[in-house]
Structures are given as C-alpha cells and as structure tokens.
C-alpha cells in the first residue's frame, strides 16, 4: 500500500519532462554588485593615509566612488528645492557634507523645468506670501549670491509684469481681505476697480468682473532652468556632491524600546541604497535625508516605510497639467500681465512676437492620466480657449502653436507645503506638496531646511504649521488661491 503511494506514475511524457527540468525564471532585475556603505569609524591615521595615497600611487587626485559611502545630508531629487537646500546648507561654510542624488540629469520630467516660472505674492496664507517674497528678495541680489569666482555672472531673466487676479462680485470681499493681509506682510498688491481696469487694460472684456488685485512690485516670471543652472554651478564650487542614481531602498537600524507592554523595536533610518548607471548598487549612510523628489515624493516616502509601516502616508501624487503656446497677432503687447481669469484659466505674454502661454487646471473629475507627458488638445478646445477668448476678445483670432505637459507635486489633502521631519523617523525631512508653487517657494524652502537642520527651528519664516503631523491631527491648511 505504502509502496503504491510512493511510486507514483508520471502524468506527462518523458520528453516533455526533460524540457521541464529547469523551471522558467521570470525576467527580474539584473543582479547588481553591492558596494557596502562605510560602517566602521576611521581613525585619524587612516584619514591621513587616505589623503596621501594618491601621491604614492601616482594618481592626480584621490579616486572617489560614484556615490559616497557616507554623507551628512542626502538630498533625494535635484530640482529647484533640492538644489536650493544644498546651496543654503553650504553657503555659510563647509559645515555639512551634502550629496544630491538625481536620477535624470537631463531633467526631462522635472517639474521645475516644465513650469511657467511665475512668482506671485498673492496668496491667502501669510506664510505663503512671505515665502514668495523671500524668492523675490533673493532674485534681486542673485548675482551677488550666485556668481562663481572666475566665471561670467549668471542670468535670470525676470520680467516684472505682475499678476492680475480677476474677481466676480461674490468674491470681491474675499479679494479685499486677501489684499489687506498681503499688504500687512509687506507685499505691494493693490486693488483695481472696474473703471481703473477699463482704463489700464482696454483690450480686456470686463464682463462679470467687479474688481481685481494686481501686484505692482516683485511679481512676474523668470526662467527656472537658468536659476537651477546658476545654483548648480555655485553648489559645485561650494563642494556639493552630485550623484546620478535612483534611490531603491532605505536601510534601517533597530533599537530596543522598553515599554510597559514589553520590549518593542524602534526603527531608525540609517541610509539608502542607490542604483547607479554603471550597474552597481551603492549603499550610502546619511545623518539627514531630505525628500525633495517632487511629484514622486510619495513613492520615495513609501520606500522609506511611510504609509507602509507607519501611518499616515505622505499624500503627494503627480498630477498632469498642460501649458499651451498660442500665437495672436492682435493681442496685448507690453501691458499684458500674468492674467488669471475667474474660471481659473491663465495667460501670459511670451516674448514680443505675439506669442502667449496659457493653461488651466482641470476639475477633480477630469484629471488626466499621469502615465506619460502627452498633451490633450481637446482640453484646450473645450476648457482653455473659450475662457481666454471670452476674457480677451483678440484671442478669437489666435492659433495654437505648440504645447507641453508637466507634473504638479499635488498635495491631495490641502495643496500646501509639507516641511519638517517625520514624527517617527526624525532624520527624514520632507519638502513636498507645493502643488504648482514649487518654483516660487523653492528658495524659501531651501533656507528653511537649512535653518531646521542647523538651528533646529525656523528663523526667517516660521513654517512650523506646515508640518507632517497635521495629517494625523486632522488639521488641514487650505489655500484658496491655487492656479
């Protein structure tokens, strides 16, 4: 009986069985050689030896690994926020060893490069106003801050045109209160009545408009690519390390926590694993890790276990937005501000050849898919063009030239900044969720991160209300002036 069960007849033929001896392997990720992060302490003699080794081996300079094995501050993402943070961390001196990990040096999908580059002081929250004003102050003196010794001073073409927010009758009081708050913060915004609007902008159709708010000083648009380029040049002079690679894993350290319920384990982030294009995976230890990955900050946070082991999760996701270039031969020329219509559509002049840049935010139900950066021209036909042609009748005779799409790092809860450390993993800092205002607030965020790391509190602008704990405490901060 037992023998019959033991000797089981094969159900498939012998030939087929030979083919099936090796189980098929799924095409997983290629095997990468792992480079250990440094975990041992270096004695002073060892450091001296490392300094003089190039002399004896005949190399001109010590060969460094592609990704450092240990660093003080690791910045994930090399867009405007990350570069600005690195700049402010190093601007005062070589106190910190800063490394930026960026997976795409061409910045093909980076939100900074694909944005319109506008700077406005007209927000409804005082801290947002102060952050934009900090950006304006920095750009006033950017040549002094960002000139690298021995090279030409950088250019940031700032066009001082100002933003014009139009308001219908039911929102006029809200606009008045906002302008009062902005003026109290020091921003130079004014309210324009319908008569003043008709006199200043005769090309505008003022149907349904009661008043508007206009930024007279410090508002406008600039080229964020040039700013990041200038910041990067200065960073390299100051000694920031740029590494190309993708963060794939976070490494933890467990510490036993003696509680009344028993011994628990408290996890602490030690560092990250970075996949470098040369095929190796480097382990990098870091004291502080800054998440400035932009739209993909949610993914990076999930890799760190936020949303997987500890809750709540980081509510940041990419949202696609379109920008269209339009040519209109009869449109407004020099006196065209950055016009924001009551319907949410915006338009601004680009250059002198009659070209304009316009767009709008889609409604919540009609959010486009984020799989790729393809442009939806139907959206222009149905949503954007009717609004702007109604507001500026000259655009009835306009031609769509080209378009591009970019991602907003959209904070799904309250569309405002998330900054500061995570309550559990205290060395993991956030700088995410700006929802379309990253270019305006990036420099202020960089400065705030430097102050948080060095002084352990915010000194220039108090951003403690934008902490991560507000999601657990159900304390959302809603900004009403989102474009």
């Amino acid at each position, binding site marked *: 009986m037992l023998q019959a069960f033991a000797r089981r007849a094969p159900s498939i033929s012998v030939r087929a069985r030979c083919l099936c001896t090796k189980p098929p392997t799924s095409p997983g990720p290629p095997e990468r050689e792992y480079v250990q992060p440094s975990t041992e302490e270096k004695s002073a003699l060892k450091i001296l030896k490392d300094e003089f080794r190039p002399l004896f081996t005949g190399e001109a300079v010590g060969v460094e690994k592609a990704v450092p094995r240990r660093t003080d501050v690791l910045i994930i993402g090399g867009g405007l926020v990350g570069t600005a943070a690195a700049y402010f961390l190093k601007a*005062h*001196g*070589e*106190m910190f060893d800063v490394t930026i990990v960026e997976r795409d040096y061409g910045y093909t999908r980076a939100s900074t490069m*694909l944005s*319109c*580059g506008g700077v406005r002081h007209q927000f409804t929250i005082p801290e947002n106003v102060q952050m934009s004003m900090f950006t304006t102050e920095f750009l*006033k*003196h950017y*040549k*002094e801050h960002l000139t690298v*010794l*021995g090279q030409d001073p950088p250019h940031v*073409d*700032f*066009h*001082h*045109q100002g933003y014009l927010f139009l308001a219908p009758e039911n929102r006029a009081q809200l606009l008045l209160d906002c302008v009062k708050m902005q003026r109290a913060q020091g921003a*130079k915004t004014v309210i324009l009545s319908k008569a003043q609007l008709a006199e200043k902008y005769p090309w505008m159709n003022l149907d349904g408009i009661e008043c508007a708010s206009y930024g*007279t*000083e*410090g508002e406008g648009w600039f*080229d964020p*690519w040039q700013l990041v380029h200038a910041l990067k040049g200065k960073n390299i002079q100051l000694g920031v390390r740029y590494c190309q690679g993708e963060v794939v894993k976070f490494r933890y350290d467990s510490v036993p926590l003696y509680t009344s319920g028993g011994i628990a384990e408290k996890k602490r982030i030690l560092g990250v694993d970075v996949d470098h294009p040369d095929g190796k995976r480097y382990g990098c230890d870091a004291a502080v890790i800054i998440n400035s990955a932009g739209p993909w900050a949610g993914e990076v946070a999930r890799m760190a276990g936020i949303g997987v082991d500890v809750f709540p999760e980081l509510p940041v996701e990419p949202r696609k937005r379109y*920008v*269209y*270039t339009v*040519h*209109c*031969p*009869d449109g407004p*020329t*020099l*006196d065209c501000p950055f016009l924001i219509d009551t319907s949410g559509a915006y338009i601004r002049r*680009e*250059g*002198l*050849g*009659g*070209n304009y*840049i316009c767009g709008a935010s889609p409604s919540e139900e009609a959010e486009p898919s984020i799989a790729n950066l393809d*442009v939806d*021209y139907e959206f*222009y*036909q149905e949503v954007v063009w009717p609004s702007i042609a109604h507001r500026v009748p000259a655009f009835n*005779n*306009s*031609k*769509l*030239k*080209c*378009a*591009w799409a970019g991602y907003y790092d959209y904070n799904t809860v309250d569309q405002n900044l998330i900054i500061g450390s995570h309550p559990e993993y205290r060395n993991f800092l956030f700088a995410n969720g700006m929802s379309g205002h990253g270019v305006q607030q990036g420099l202020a965020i960089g400065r705030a991160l430097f102050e948080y790391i*060095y*002084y352990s509190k915010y000194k220039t602008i108090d951003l403690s209300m934008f902490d991560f704990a507000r999601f657990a405490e159900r304390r959302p901060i809603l900004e009403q002036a989102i474009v």
Partner: protein
Amino acid sequence: MTTVLKRCLRGTMQTQLHSVCCPKVFSLEQKRHIRWKFSWDENHLFYLWKTYNISPTGIKDTMLRSEREGFINEQRYIPAKALQRGPDLAAADMILNFNGRVKFNNDDVWYKTYEKGTSPLPQSFRPDLKLEAVDLADSNWMLTGMDHLHGCEHVVFVSLARCKYVTDWFIAQLVLHCPNLKYLDVSGCPEITDATMEMAYKFRHLQILNITDCQGIKQGEVFSVFLEDLLPELIIIGVDSLSKMELPLHEYEQQNSRFLNLGMSASIPEQIVGLRSETSEKSTVVNCKLNMSDSVELKVEPLKTESVC
C-alpha cells in the same frame, strides 16, 4: 565720565558728538565688543567653517564684497528720519551724501554738497519743498537707496547714468515710488536689460528715455517700436535703427525663449491646426504687431530717435 564730556561739548555740532562719546543704546554685539569678550554661539561658527580664498582674485573679490555691503549699510532707509524731515529732504540728504545732485520745485538750482562736507539743505521739515530732479550719475547707488524715494511723487527727472550697480530692480522701485517720471537716463549701465524697456510703459508721462551704451539691452529697437505705440510722446535716445537687427524677430525669439521651444517636439493634430487659421495665415516670418512687408527691414513710421551728441 561720558556725561561730563557731553556737557563740555554741548553747543558744538551734533554730528561730532556721536563719534566722540559712546551712543546711549548698546546692542548685544556692541556690549561684547566693548568688554572685549567673545562668546561662541551658533552664528559665530560660520567664521570658522567658511573657506577663505587667499588668492589675489579671492582677496579682491572679498574687498569688493565688503565695499558693496558698506554702501548698502550706509544707504539704509531709516523711517524715523523721513518722518522727522519729510521724505523729500531725507532723500535729498542721502543723495547728497553720495555725490549726487538734487533739484527742488521752487528754483532752478542744482544742490550739491559743499567741499567741507556740510549740506546746503534746510535741516527741518519744509512742506513747500518738493524733490523734482535727482542726478545720481557715476555714483554707487544701491537698491536699498531707492527706498528713500518712497513718498517723493513729484520727482520727474532721474539720472542713473554709468552706475555700475544699477539693475532692472531699480526701475521697478522707481515705477512704484515715482510714477510721474518724465525723464529717465540709464545710459552706460552694464546690468540694465530688456526688462527695463518692458517696464518703461508704466511711466505714463515719460518723455525721454536714454539707453545709450547699455550692453544688456538686446532688443532695444523692437521695444522702442512698441513703446512708441503705448506712449506717443516718448523719445528714446540711444537706439539707432531697426536695420541693425541681425536676426528677424521670429528667429531671435525661437533662439532665446525656452518657453517657446519646450513644446516644439509635440505635434498638433491636423483638425486643431486647421480650425483657427482664417486670418492668422498672414502672420509672416517677422511676427510683429505692425503690418509687415516681406523684406527683413521693418518699414514702419519714422521713429523719433535722436543720436546722442
């Protein structure tokens, strides 16, 4: 000790008192300096960590930086002074300190500091004196200095010729403080760019704009065409002629504007292109607002330009 000294010096010029006696209010820094004690706090660590560049270029750079910071410090706007003497006189005082000249609305005299260093201006508030003209040519005027013009709405003449620190932000401040400007001179300023021309239309009464020798202005000719449209009385000095443009406007924009080139690779579907093309087909190579002919040189009505003598 100090009170005895003050009693002896009473009756002499007020300004000398400050240099001889100690001021009454001490800040924390001043207290530390006087007692010759130095305590390390987190801000002082920056001096230790900074990399000091001791090459000749580095030293020169440091000296230029400290000189620039000195100017910024001296030109700081003190609201109490403006309240005491009125904005016009306070601004005039600061301008005269920096080798500038001012003119008021009551007479035709350019005021300048005397050789001994004393100032010819009245010391107390005079409601009838309004600042009309400011001449800051060849001076080290800084952006903080423009705050002094807050409240001086009667200024009609501003000259910032050959000032090396003048940028477009100065003109943005001027737009804010002195909207009644009639004459603006920024000739010879190396850091003035096209943004100045973009902002010039905001001066509704501007009559003369001088931009000779501004290397940063690349499209002065095209801007002057647009400015002539918006401000009919404007005369622009320093712009020679439109035939000097090397590239037609369309190509210049395609080369220089990143935003126009971002979407170049995206292809627009045929049905969208054909829809709005009724009258915009005549947008030729040079996409300017005025009627264009086929040749490269723009044939427009004669510009009221003058070459500077």
